[in-house]
């Protein structure tokens, strides 16, 4: 795990997964964040984040 933290694509992936979680969870549970664009963008950046995390160095 520590080795992967030195891999830039992994760090970028983690960052976008975190952003995705904030947007998607916020859409369902926080009234102020319940906008469709938050959900769609959250799903989009989540897919990108997973792709980057799984990318081999």
């Amino acid at each position, binding site marked *: 795990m520590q080795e992967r933290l030195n891999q*830039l694509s992994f*760090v*970028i992936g983690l*960052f*976008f997964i975190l*952003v995705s979680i*904030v*947007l998607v969870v*916020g*859409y369902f549970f926080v009234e*102020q*964040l319940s*906008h469709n*664009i*938050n959900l*769609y*963008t959250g799903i*989009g*950046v989540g897919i*990108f984040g997973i792709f980057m995390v799984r990318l081999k160095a």
Partner: protein
Amino acid sequence: MMPFYYGSKARSVPEYLSLRFDEKTRGLNAITFAVMTVFSSGISLYALAMLLKVILHWNFDLCIWAAAGIVMAYTFLGGLTSAVYNEVLQFFLIVLGLSPLVIVALNDAGGWEGIKTSLDPKFTHAWKYMGNANDNDMGINFISMIFGLGFVMSFGYWCTDFLVVQRAMIAKNMNAAQRTPIIAAIPKMFMPLIVVLPGVVALSLLKTNPAFLEKVKDVMYNGDEINYSMTLPALLKAYYPNGLLGLGITALIASFMSGMAGNVTAFNSVFTYDIYQAYFIKNRSDKHYLNVGKLVTLFGILFSIGTAYIAASFNNINDFLQLVFSFVNGPLFATFLLGMFWKRTTGHGAFWGLLGGTIAAAITHGLTIAEGKGGWIAPMYEIKSGMGQAFIVASFSWLANFVITIVVSLVTKPKPDEELKGLVYSLTEKVRSNETRWYLKPGPLGLILLIITILLNILLF
């Protein structure tokens, strides 16, 4: 040009000039480049501070110092590596954070067809109205566009701007170094979709959508005058709800920080290697130069804060940026073109050409006026836009440098061939790539880019 940069083992563009020509040419380029990076960095800092002021309603001066402090922290601690790593993350952040904005705003404007209906056709065509300078708002014709932007400014940026070249110089091998600018050009070609298209969309919405105008009036207008630099923040404010607004603001902050950090790291490299080590304190330990580099980072950021306030006087900061490039990259490109491909070019020729080109840029700026800027000698010729003025300035600076360098070189003594091996095209062994996969070879990649460029120009003609 990469085989000469990478093959010569120079650590910076000015250092290449010292190997190819002499110390005085290196010194002159190092000084002009250092000034350019400080101005460019200040422009990014100004944009960043304006964004924080408009969106978060912070005090402008506080925004300048806070933004400068953050960039200083990571460039001071991590140096070039941290700047480059951050640039990669920031790139994805910009693309993913701003793409939804383009889609939503474009949809609201009725798509591309809706924009074409509402705007004057000159806003939706790249070349159609470039036949005559009076037919377009830039105020230049296609010759100035192709020569000033397509040739001088573009080649100057991609081939001589140390900020760009430095990224290739730290590549792991020659093949990777050659691929660096080619791969960088791919997202750069599509960046207008995120940077230019929103501007066109905003213009359309301002004309056709009163609700949009009401939402962005306080951000985009200074009295009756539109502040074009605030287009993206205004669109963010109008279209992004809570949640995504955070991502959008972060993307813009990332963009400006990336620009600023890149310029600051280039500034400290050039100042430390090409001014301090070359002319003041030689033969000291690496640790000494590292410490000096860190100190220079601090001063670079302080200078940037000063130039950020100068950028505030321009209602379009891109015009200011292009003007700065036209003074430095424009003449420098002629020096490199002759230096790398004509072995007869001498150190005296390069120095006087570079100096003459820079002076020609200043004279052209002093004799032309655009949007109230320039004309400080005598406003003899008026150009409609600041950007058009920058292309004209770049063209004259390049021409002056080209002619002066050739004339002075012909009457001065060139370096012997032995000293120019690896630095000049005709005396450098041609690089043969061992790479077998076509998609990793610079040649096929470059050809694909050229085809895409031609197609995009036809599509947006």
